[in-house]
């Protein structure tokens, strides 16, 4: 009889975390930013059909980096959770905090169960409030922890570097065009510091807009509307970039 290899629990967890982290870093980054009238989601996504961002409920949006089939699974689970809550109780009883908790439980259980491979995903759950102060953004890494974020957050790819850039440049009360411009700038910085151009048709953009008269605040920004917003920031970018150099 052969003796099985002994692997210490510390080592086992470290290996699993390493595995998940590498998987997430392989995907493209995406960013979630607060702006004056809500929260904007921006990411590079060559596919028109497989979305990285989607609507969960009236005021709640979802963003995910990593393996598509895994986060799609979690997304549908989240929609199911939210719809069921809203139907059983009231639409107002569906909150991002509750949803983030459910995701944390799910991710945590999968991460520590020996039989399953850990999910290679990192999620962002965002809820737009009546005012900027009431906005909530939660980041959920692969191991089931929850990080309460403010202002701007990046996940996937070289998220650390992008986060650093966003922390320096993001400020409260930006317009949508300004926030979008900052997001695209941060995404187009490569790991080696060089910049590359991301064409508009490769961008996936969605907003949770608190000024929308409908109950459901989530909206995708595509085509002409996106082009117009990107153009609007072009006019301002010259003025601002001159400030940057000073």
């Amino acid at each position, binding site marked *: 009889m052969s003796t099985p290899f002994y692997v210490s629990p510390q080592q086992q967890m470290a290996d699993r975390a390493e595995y998940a982290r590498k998987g997430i870093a392989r995907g493209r980054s995406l960013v979630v930013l607060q702006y004056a009238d809500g929260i904007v989601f921006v990411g590079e996504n060559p596919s028109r*059909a497989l*979305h990285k961002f*989607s*609507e*969960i409920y009236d005021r709640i949006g979802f963003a995910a980096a990593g393996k598509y089939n895994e986060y799609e699974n979690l997304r*549908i689970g989240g*929609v*199911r959770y939210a*719809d*069921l809550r*809203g*139907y*059983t109780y009231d639409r107002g009883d569906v909150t991002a905090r509750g949803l983030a908790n459910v995701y944390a439980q799910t991710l945590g259980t999968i991460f520590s169960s020996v039989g399953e491979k850990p999910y290679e995903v990192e999620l962002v759950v965002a809820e737009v409030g009546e005012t900027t102060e009431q906005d909530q953004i939660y980041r959920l890494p692969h191991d089931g922890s929850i990080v309460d974020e403010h202002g701007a957050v990046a996940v996937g790819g070289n998220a650390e570097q992008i986060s650093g850039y966003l922390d320096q440049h993001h400020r409260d009360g930006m317009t949508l065009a300004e926030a979008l411009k900052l997001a695209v700038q941060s995404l187009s910085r490569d790991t080696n510091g060089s910049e590359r151009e991301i064409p508009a048709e490769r961008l996936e953009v969605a907003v949770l807009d608190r000024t929308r008269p*409908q109950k459901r605040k989530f909206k995708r920004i595509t085509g002409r509307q996106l082009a117009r917003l990107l153009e609007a920031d072009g006019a301002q970018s010259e003025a601002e970039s001159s400030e940057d150099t000073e």
Partner: protein
Amino acid sequence: MDFLSDHQPELLPGNKKLPPLQGAIEAPHGTTIVAVTFPGGVVLAGDRRATMGNVIAQRDIEKVFPADEYSAVGIAGTAGLAVEMVKLFQLELEHFEKVEGAQLSLEGKANRLSTMIRSNLGMAMQGLAVVPLFAGYDVDREKGRIFSYDVTGGRSEEQGYAATGSGSIFARGAMKKLFREDLSEAEATTLVVQALYDAADDDSATGGPDVARRIYPIVTVITEDGFRRLSETESSEIARSVLERRLEQPDGPRAALL
């Protein structure tokens, strides 16, 4: 699609066996719903009365609801069950849209409602029927469409105008004489208020505009831009102008004889 029955079947209405019935159940009933199409969209409206036998159960009940961005449903029949059915219908449409990333076709929505009415047949046979009117803007065909139902879930598409509920006979008569193919949105909203006035005139279970309590019909418009419910000021203005003309001519506008 039918995710409630897969996940939490106990939440579904109409799933429980009813005890054997002794006499009729008294529950509030909603009455008249009318709909009219016009080039570019459709108008769906309802009166505000709920009755329980000979008693007015509620004066300001709301019987017209948005089903999603491009459709609305108006309900006649047992109010409690109908409201529950609409809630479930809204949930299913929204859930489908979010999971699939695309809206159901208008036909698909109409068919789904048909199945839901049929599942209520047991209750309907005990006197708790729900008979809705479904109206929506078909984004593929670029026009407003109306679907009516019977208690067994039978669905039929209506051309031009339709009505359901106890006052529907009178409302339909009024609309038949007033309807034209080239109505504007403003004319269509006036037409439905006229039809509801005529229904209230001849049917005791339908409520007319209540000027004293400021209760006016609910009027909704669905166009390319989506669902919109007329504000209270807007619908009161229409109701008041209709009422004013009726003071001179109680039977309303006259159609030409030939």
